[in-house]
């Protein structure tokens, strides 16, 4: 009993680690096909990573230890979230402390590390990217918390595993007003958090608009590879979390056997693949928002999340 959760946590982390480049690859391939290109295939991010890992380590002059450890901090925080979040089973290895606040906090550690690394290089673009990233993070984190709060009110707990198993027992609550509002708010927040269209464009390095790429500009070789890998892992974890919070079919309940765990692993892989394809397909039809319009979008998603919490608490006395 005590061995299986640890094993599953390790499997979750390893799964996210291995799947992240493929998730990015699938999204790029969907983009390419919908835009009428052939595309490089879904294995291309893996090939890029291998190529960069073989390159020489380069450290820009004047950078400090902040620059050096940032990729490891981002990748480590993303992996820890992957290990403790309810992806395959609702029973977490670090159950009492792996709640909503811990997960959001861990994601924020990664964002802060990346921003500090951008500032540490002392270049104009790095600083610009960092200030923009912090602006977005300041708007995104409260919304992320609020949107999951709306789901945690029916569950009566801020523990993500408890929220997911409540939804699994009563799937009808997703179709209510708070569920729908929280879903939309969470999608906007995930798009902003992972730097995808329409908040940031991951496929360009245009000076005036880039946010995430600006902070990574001074990285090269293995550290750049780790940086990109970590970005993919954050996206994968957030998509998996979104999938399980709203469509928790197939997730293993506590005490489930090895077969249920295998089924759950297959289910989460399929759900993430479908979500990634849908996100990529939606992105094809979108243009990047002007930076000054981004706070409008995020304030709107904050409002949706707040409405979700409000209606959820109004509905609670009627529900029971």
């Amino acid at each position: 009993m005590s061995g299986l959760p640890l094993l599953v946590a390790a499997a979750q982390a390893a799964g996210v680690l291995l799947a992240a480049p493929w998730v990015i690859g699938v999204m790029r391939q969907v983009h390419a096909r919908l835009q009428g290109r052939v595309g490089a295939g879904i294995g291309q991010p893996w090939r890029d990573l291998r190529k960069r890992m073989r390159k020489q380590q380069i450290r820009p002059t004047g950078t400090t230890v902040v620059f050096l450890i940032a990729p490891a901090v981002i990748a480590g925080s993303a992996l820890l979230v992957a290990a403790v979040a309810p992806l395959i089973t609702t029973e977490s290895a670090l159950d009492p402390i792996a709640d909503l606040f811990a997960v959001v906090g861990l994601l924020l550690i990664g964002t802060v590390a990346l921003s500090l690394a951008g500032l540490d290089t002392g270049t104009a673009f790095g600083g610009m990217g960092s200030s923009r990233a912090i602006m977005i993070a300041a708007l995104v984190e409260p919304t992320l918390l609020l949107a999951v709060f709306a789901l945690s009110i029916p569950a009566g707990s801020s523990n993500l595993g408890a929220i997911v198993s409540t939804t699994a027992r009563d799937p009808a609550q997703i179709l209510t007003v708070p569920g729908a509002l929280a879903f939309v708010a969470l999608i906007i927040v995930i798009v902003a958090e992972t730097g995808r269209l329409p908040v940031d464009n991951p496929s360009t390095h245009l000076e005036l608009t880039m946010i995430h790429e600006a902070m990574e500009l001074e990285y090269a070789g293995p550290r750049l590879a780790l940086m990109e890998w970590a970005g993919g892992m954050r996206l994968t974890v957030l998509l998996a979390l979104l999938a399980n919070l709203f469509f928790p079919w197939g997730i293993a309940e506590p005490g489930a056997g090895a077969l249920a765990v295998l089924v759950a692993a297959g289910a989460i892989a399929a759900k993430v693949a479908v979500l990634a394809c849908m996100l990529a397909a939606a992105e094809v039809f979108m243009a990047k928002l002007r930076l000054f319009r981004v706070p409008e979008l995020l304030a709107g998603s904050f409002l949706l999340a707040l409405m979700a919490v409000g209606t959820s608490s109004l509905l609670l006395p009627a529900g029971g």
Partner: protein
Amino acid sequence: MPGQTETVTVTTAAGALLLTAVLIVWRRELRAMVLLLTCQGVALAALPIIEGMQRAEAGLVSIGLVVLTLRAAVLPLVLARLVTAHSTARREGRPVIGTVASLLVTALLIVLSFAMARPIQRLADGTDAPAVGMVLAVVFIALFTMATRRRALSQAVGFLMLDNGITGIAFLLTSGVPVIVELGASLDVLFVTLVLGLLGRALQRTFGDTDTHRLRELRD
């Protein structure tokens, strides 16, 4: 449990009312605002229709159908014609309050009206209680929209939203007003919209746009 599902549908309709109100605050294109107002009319008409179907009362359903034709077809058409007349201004220009600030004010208004809805919920019989707070928020958001928009058309949208909210509260709290009262109120709203439309056209002819702030000065 039919009562449970009915409450859920009423809450969903009320949620759609609130959501369209928020989106009207968010969006600035006049065309999008009119479209959202149409959606809001459909959501409003759903309230008496659900109630009437559940209690098998033909009167409530027919009120719902009247509301549907008026708020989801006639009034948006009148407004849409006005938008087409505005060849120059397709969107709300420089707002009195920026979008982010308006969205945050809207958030405050929603929290306020949810808090205010608690005592009203205790007065009502309790079945549709959660919906009251949402529709009350629509009323406040509508007042806020009317106060902070410059164009006559946006203000007309705010006014119609206000009336949608008031009608919605009436449906939720009294489970349907008499047909004659509803018809009278609807006729009033129709005339007000027509007058607003005429006013908008007159503004457009005189000044070239419909910014009501131009009406501050006296002219010959």
